[in-house]
Each structure stands twice: as C-alpha cells, then as structure tokens.
C-alpha cells in the first residue's frame, strides 16, 4: 500500500480546490491506499462546523469529511498555528483531527510516496 497524503490549504468556497481535494481523498481511499489527510492554513476552514448553504445552490461538502472513517482513513492531522491564527479551537470542526505543529509538516510530507496539495 502506497503512503499518500492529501493536504488542504485553501478555504472551501472561494475556489474549487478544497472540493477537488476531498474527491481525491475518497478516490484514493476507495483504492485501498494508505491515505492520510492534513489541514493547514486556510484549509482548516474547510472543516468548520455550522455551514448553512440553504438558498445558495452550492453544495456544503463539510459533512462528507465525517465519512472518511468509513473509508478507513484514520490518519487526519491539523496544524495548531493555523487553527489559532483564525481564532478557532478543535471544537469548531466537524471532525477531530490530531493536532500537530508546523515543524512536523515537512517531515510528514517526506514520509509519503506522494502528496497532493489543494
């Protein structure tokens, strides 16, 4: 099983990146790869609780992150400084990733066969 990581670093609706990132996670999960997920910078906003898209015609894809466990994707990480600089805490998210520090990010990337930035 190849070690693959998807890195979320953009906010959910200003561009299509975050949505595409989620699609990639699900596809790789379906192929039974060793997939991990990392939220850094504005990527942490992708899993913010309380999104209400009623009337906008735009899909709220944040609940799908709760399904990652069903795909056996259990290694989910979030950068502490990115949470703090946005005035958020772990309670603000729809899932509960493991909190890591910025100096662990590069090491984590190096451990992968490949990683993908969204």
């Amino acid at each position, binding site marked *: 099983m190849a070690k693959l990581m998807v890195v979320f670093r*953009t*906010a*959910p*609706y*200003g561009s299509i990146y975050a949505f595409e990132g989620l699609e990639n996670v699900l596809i790789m999960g379906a192929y039974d790869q060793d997939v991990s997920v990392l939220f850094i*910078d*504005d990527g942490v*906003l992708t899993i*913010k*609780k*309380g*999104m*209400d*898209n*009623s*009337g*906008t015609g*735009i899909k*709220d894809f*944040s609940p799908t992150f709760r399904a990652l466990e069903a795909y056996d994707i259990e290694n989910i990480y979030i950068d502490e400084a990115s949470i*703090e*600089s*946005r*005035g958020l805490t772990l309670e603000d998210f729809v899932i509960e990733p493991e909190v890591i520090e910025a100096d662990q990010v590069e090491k984590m990337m190096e451990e992968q066969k490949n990683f993908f930035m969204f």
Partner: protein
Amino acid sequence: MLHLINESPFESMSLEDCLKYASKGASILLYEDGVYAAMPGSGVADKMRAVAKDYKVYVLSEDLKMRGVDNVMDGVTEIDYAGFVGLVEENKTASW
C-alpha cells in the same frame, strides 16, 4: 466609494492593498472568502478593529452562513444581498 474584498485575509494582500488607497470614512464590503476577516479572535482581528474605526465595514451575511462563521466582530455590520445592491447603487465600487 465602496471597496469590495472577496479574498481570505490570511492568504491575500487585497485588504492591505485596498487600505493603502481608501480614504477614511469609505465603505468596505467583505464577501466570499473576504468574510473570514470579520471572525473575532483571529490573527487579523486587531487590525480589523482599527479598520472598523476608520471605515464603514460591512460583511455579507449569506457568505458568513455558508462558511459556518456565526460570530462577527464588533464594529462590522452584517448586510444581505439586498443591502449589497443598495450599497452598489449609492457608491462607485472598486474590486480588489
């Protein structure tokens, strides 16, 4: 003048660029990813408090809701799409 900001303050310089040129008392509307600037307690909150003293700062409520941002800092006024249209009718606009 109405200045429009639609990019995240954590990733983009558009708010800083706007502030270099906007005269005091001008209106600034945060929409799309720009609404993240109105979150209380963030790394840009201190700066935004100062901005809110010198400018009329508005934030689009529909874009807040969509992003799950349910708290807005003091000094920033929530408006809806109708309010957005009203501001555009009354002002010349600059998109940053």
